[in-house]
C-alpha cells in the first residue's frame, strides 16, 4: 500500500504542475487553452535537443524550455488571442482559436522533431529501495522539484506585484482596469507564464517519460480533468485536482487491476457524479 501511495503522490505532483499553467490562462483570460499539451511537448523537445543532443547541462535546457515557451506564449497572446478577444464577443471564438493552435503546433512539432519517441539520459541514477517502497531517485528529485515549483509559483502569485495584478485580473477584469492594472500587459505576462509552466514541466518530465510528437492531445485532456476536479481558474484547485487524479489513478490501477482497464472508466464515472453535485469543482466559483 505504501508503494501505491508513493506512486500516487509522485504522479500527483507531476499532474498538478501540468494543470497549473492551464488554470492560470483560464483564470486570466477565460481562454480554454487546448494547446497546453502541445506546449508541454515543445518544452520537452527543447530540453531533449539541448540536454540530450547538445549535451549541455540539464538546468540550461530546462531554462531554455521555459524561456522558449514564455516567448511562444507571449506571441500567441499578443498576435492571436488578444485581437480575437477584442473583436469577438463570443467566447467560443477563443476556444476555436486555441484548438487551431493545438493542431498547428502538433503539425510543426511533428515536422521539426519527427515521429519517434525521444528520451534523454537520467539526471540521477539509482533506486531507493526499502521494505515497502521502491522509488527511483530521479522520480524523487522530479517530485520534489515539482513541489518546490508549485510553492514558488504560489508565493509569486501571492506576494509579487505582477502576481497581485494577475490575481486582481482573474477576480474582476474591469475593476482591475479601473484600479490602474495594465490589462494587456498582465494578460500577456499571464499567458507567457502559463506557457512557460507547460514548457518547464515538459522539460522536467522528459527525463522520466521521454517525449513524442503525438502526446500533446492526451496531456491536454488530463490537464482539463484536473482543472474540472479542482475548479476552473483556481490555482489551489488545480493543485488539488492534480493530486486527487494521481492518487485515484495509482489506487485504481492496483485495486481494480483484476477487472481489466476500468480505472479511467471509474474515474470518469466518479467525475460525472461529482460534477453533477458540484459543477464548479472543489474550489471553483459560480461566477468564474
Amino acid at each position: 500500500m505504501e508503494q501505491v501511495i508513493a506512486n500516487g503522490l509522485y504522479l500527483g505532483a507531476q499532474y498538478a504542475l501540468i494543470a497549473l499553467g492551464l488554470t492560470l490562462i483560464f483564470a486570466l483570460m477565460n481562454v480554454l487553452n487546448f494547446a497546453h499539451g502541445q506546449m508541454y511537448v515543445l518544452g520537452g523537445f527543447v530540453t531533449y535537443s539541448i540536454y540530450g543532443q547538445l549535451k549541455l547541462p540539464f538546468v540550461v535546457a530546462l531554462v531554455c524550455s521555459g524561456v522558449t515557451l514564455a516567448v511562444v506564449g507571449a506571441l500567441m497572446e499578443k498576435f492571436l488571442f488578444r485581437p480575437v478577444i477584442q473583436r469577438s464577443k463570443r467566447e467560443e471564438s477563443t476556444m476555436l482559436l486555441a484548438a487551431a493552435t493545438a493542431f498547428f503546433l502538433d503539425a510543426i512539432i511533428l515536422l521539426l522533431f519527427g515521429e519517434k519517441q525521444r528520451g534523454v539520459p537520467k539526471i540521477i541514477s539509482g533506486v531507493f529501495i526499502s521494505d515497502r517502497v521502491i522509488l527511483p531517485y530521479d522520480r524523487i528529485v522530479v517530485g520534489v522539484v515539482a513541489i518546490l515549483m508549485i510553492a514558488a509559483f504560489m508565493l509569486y502569485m501571492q506576494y509579487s506585484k505582477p502576481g497581485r495584478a494577475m490575481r486582481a485580473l482573474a477576480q474582476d477584469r474591469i475593476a482591475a482596469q479601473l484600479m490602474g492594472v495594465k490589462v494587456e500587459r498582465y494578460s500577456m505576462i499571464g499567458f507567457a507564464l502559463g506557457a512557460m509552466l507547460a514548457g518547464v514541466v515538459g522539460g522536467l518530465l522528459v527525463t522520466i517519460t521521454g517525449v513524442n510528437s503525438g502526446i500533446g492531445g492526451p496531456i491536454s485532456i488530463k490537464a482539463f480533468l484536473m482543472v474540472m476536479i479542482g475548479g476552473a481558474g483556481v490555482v489551489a484547485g488545480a493543485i488539488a485536482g492534480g493530486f486527487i487524479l494521481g492518487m485515484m489513478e495509482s489506487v485504481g490501477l492496483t485495486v481494480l487491476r483484476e477487472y481489466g482497464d476500468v480505472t479511467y472508466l471509474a474515474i470518469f464515472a466518479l467525475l460525472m457524479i461529482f460534477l453533477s453535485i458540484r459543477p464548479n469543482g472543489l474550489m471553483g466559483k459560480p461566477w468564474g
Partner: protein
Amino acid sequence: MGSEMINRRSTLKSLALGAVSILAIAVASTLPAQAENKELKIGFVGVTSGPAAAWGTSNVRSMQTRADWLNETGGVKIGEDTYKITIVTFDDQKDPKRAIAGMEKMAQEGIHFVVGPNVDDGAAAVRPVAESKGIIYFPYAFPKSLYVAPASNAILGMVANYQSGPAIYKYLKENKGVKKVAFIAANESDPISQRDSGVAAAKELGLEVVAETDTYQNDTRDFTPVLTPIVQLKPDLLVLSGVAPANAPLLIRAARELGYEGLISAETAQDATVLQEGAGELANGFISVGGASTPEIRTPLMEEFIERYTKKFGEYNDESNTKVYALEYIIETLKANPKAIDNVEEFKKTIDSFSAPNPYAKDSTLKYVGSTSFGQKRQLSVPMVVTEFENGTFKTLFVGEVD
C-alpha cells in the same frame, strides 16, 4: 508580280514545312520519352501522425527511399515498359473512417496496390472498398478474417504475433528456463487481440500465466503504477503485447526500476535508438522481432538501403527492416506477371507460384506464405528474426520462417 507570288508561296511553304518538321521532331522526341516515363503509382494508407505515427512513417519513408532509388537508376522494367514509381500517401490518423476515405482516394487515382493500414480496425474498415475497387492492400494488422477466404485482397505485410509468439515462448522455455509469464497490453483492439493469442499460445506450451488481463491507456506516460502489481507477481517473462515503439522503453524502464529481473519481450518490431534513448542499459536483454534487423543477415543492398534512408531522412528507423518488403514484393510480382499491373485477379494468380531472391536478407527468398495460418497464401514471407537488444543494437537470437 508573278515572281513575288512564287516567292511568297515558297516562303509560306518553307515555313509550313519547317513548322511541320519541328512538330514532327517534337512528337518523335516525346514518344520514346513517354514510353520511358510511364508512371506506376503505389499507395499508402496508414498512420503518420499522433502517438502511433512511428508505425506508418517507417512504412512511408521505406517506400519513398526505395522508390527514389529505383527511379534514380532508371526506373523499373515491367514487361516491355519502364516505369517511374510514385508513392501516394494518405494519413488515416489511426481512424477507420479516414482509412476508408484514404482507400477511396487511392481508387480515384487509379491505384491498384496499397500498403497499409497499420492497425486492425483500419484494415477491416477498408476491406469493402479494396474489394469493390480492385485494390490489393498490405495491412500490418493481424485479424485472420482479413486473410482467410472468401477475403482475398489483403496480404499481411509482416509476421503475426500468433506466428512469432509460440516460437519465442518455446525458445525461452527451453533455453532460459521460463515458467511463469505475465502479459500486459494497451487497452486497444490490436494489442488486446495480440495479448489474447499470446496467452493461448503460452498456455498451450504449458507455461503458467500469472497476469492475462492487465491493460494500460495507450497515452500513459508513467507506467510505474501500472506495473507495480505485475512485478510483485515475479514472472520469469513479461510480454508487452502489441507494444508501440513509443511505449516499449517506458514500460521496460518502469519494470526494471521497480526491481523486475526477469525477461521482457514483444512480438512487434522496435527501434534500437528509441530503446537506447528511453531505457538505456535497462533495455539490455529485451527480446523483439524484426525483418532484416541484424548486420549478420543483411545483404549489401540492405546496407545501402539503410544508408540512403538515413541520408534522406536524417535517421534510420529499425522498423523499416520489416517495412521495406511490401514495395519490393509488389514490384517483383508485377515483373513476374506484367498483366497484373492493372488487374488484381492476375496479381492473385501469380501469388501462388511467385518466387524471387530476397535482396535484403542472405539465404532467403521472396515468396508468399500463410497457407498454414490462413488456408491460402496471403502473407509476405519476411524473415522472422528474433532479436535481443544489447547496448544500443539488436543481436540475432534465432531466425525463423513462417509457412
